[in-house]
């Protein structure tokens, strides 16, 4: 697992209160990890702060799974 993936996973475990083993690449925030709409917005904000990036709303809407988040951040983090 990449260093970025590890950091993303830690944020998800902390914010959603889930077990690390549940945070698989395919896991959907809403369907698998119990996030509601506010939780999802919070996750995006935490990713922005952690990686020093700004994720526009139209991009944020497309981030539905752990893998989506990791890919986006790998492509956009400085």
């Amino acid at each position, binding site marked *: 697992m990449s260093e970025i993936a590890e950091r993303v996973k830690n944020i998800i475990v902390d*914010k*959603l*209160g889930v077990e690390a083993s549940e945070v698989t690449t395919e896991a959907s925030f809403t369907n698998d990890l*119990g996030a509601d709409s*506010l939780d999802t*917005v*919070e996750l995006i*904000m935490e990713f*922005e*702060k952690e990686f*020093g*990036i*700004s994720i526009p709303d139209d991009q944020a809407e497309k981030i539905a799974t752990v893998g989506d988040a990791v890919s986006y951040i790998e492509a956009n983090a400085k």
Partner: protein
Amino acid sequence: MELKRVVVTGLGALTPVGNTVAETWENLVNGVSGAGPITHFDASKFKTQFACEVKGFNGADFIDRKEVRKMDLYTQYAIVAAKEAIADSEMDLEKEDLNKIGVIYGVGIGGIHTFEEEVLGYAQTKDTIGPKFSPFFIPKMIADIASGQISIMYGFHGPNFTTTSACASSSNAIADAFNYIRLGKANVIVAGGAEAAIFPAGVGGFNAMHALSTRNDDPQHASRPFSASRDGFIMGEGAGCLILEELEHAKARGAKIYAELAGVGASADAHHLTASHPEGLGAKLVMLNALEDAEMKPEDIDYINVHGTSTPVGDVSEAKAIKDVFGEHAYKLNISSTKSMTGHLLGAAGAVEAIASVLAVKNDIVPPTINHAEGDNDENIDYELNFTFNKAQKRTVNAALSNTFGFGGHNACVIVKKYAE
């Protein structure tokens, strides 16, 4: 229409002197101070470096780990006190009409710590990745959310809101709950108050007003209401909760009854932002309002749990108001400020002090006003009044009156009495 009677059938408390009602009451009766150095943050550069904090509290011991994160500390306190009170009432929620159970919680400030954290976060991000706020910022911070969260936890669909009148907030919550029940709008109301403001903005804000004691070398003896050397209030935090129930509803389910809620009053000083009226005008009015509401005479009151915050102006005007309202009887009743032990719980003060008043009525014991040194007398205070200094007193307490006054000049008063058929 005939108004219904309202009784107290459950209690919950999380205070600087105890994490349950039983522990809080025992320490109040024994004159134990809840003050100590501030641990919530590094207060070493603040004028006031001590407070009355809740001890050994971990919200996750009581609330789901996922949910607790979405709650400001004040809401966590509110929920813990509500849980204790609901359990204490022994209501079988399976059998209750949940549409007739409400929640009214008074809060003076709300999630001030959440507000601070979010604004600090904004300051860090505004010039780099742009302004960032948590989507939970608003729902964590707002003062009504404790009432909302309690209703969500239990599925209570009755009247639900917060009351806010600074340090009178939760007395107003009790008053509103009383009115809803006696008008037949609810069978039961979970009424209380909560506050958690011992954070930089809270301490710094009150310090700027010169409202807090700065006796940093002796926190446990700093809250000394009615003593000449008092130098301001001591911040407290926590929550108190009372289950208020319509009498026939309580009897039908065989509930234990602590006391009857006899009457409530509300008034305004209409005088100054923060200073109480020098002659205690609003204080006088609110006690008279409550007595009238309770259809009681001044002579019926045995104990007054005063607002008595240990500030130079407030204590004098309240003592004057008591003499004006009670006349000769003022010298026969007991007066005490439990804030000498708990500190000032702001929005939670009214609920916690109503609980102390209920237990004084139930147990026939008046908790003391601690920290009065022999001879430390203020020439503007009449020491023929019985302030119950330093030691609890056993006496028959048929009825007790609890005063709370808030910045803005809000006054609220609650009278409880022994329940009799």
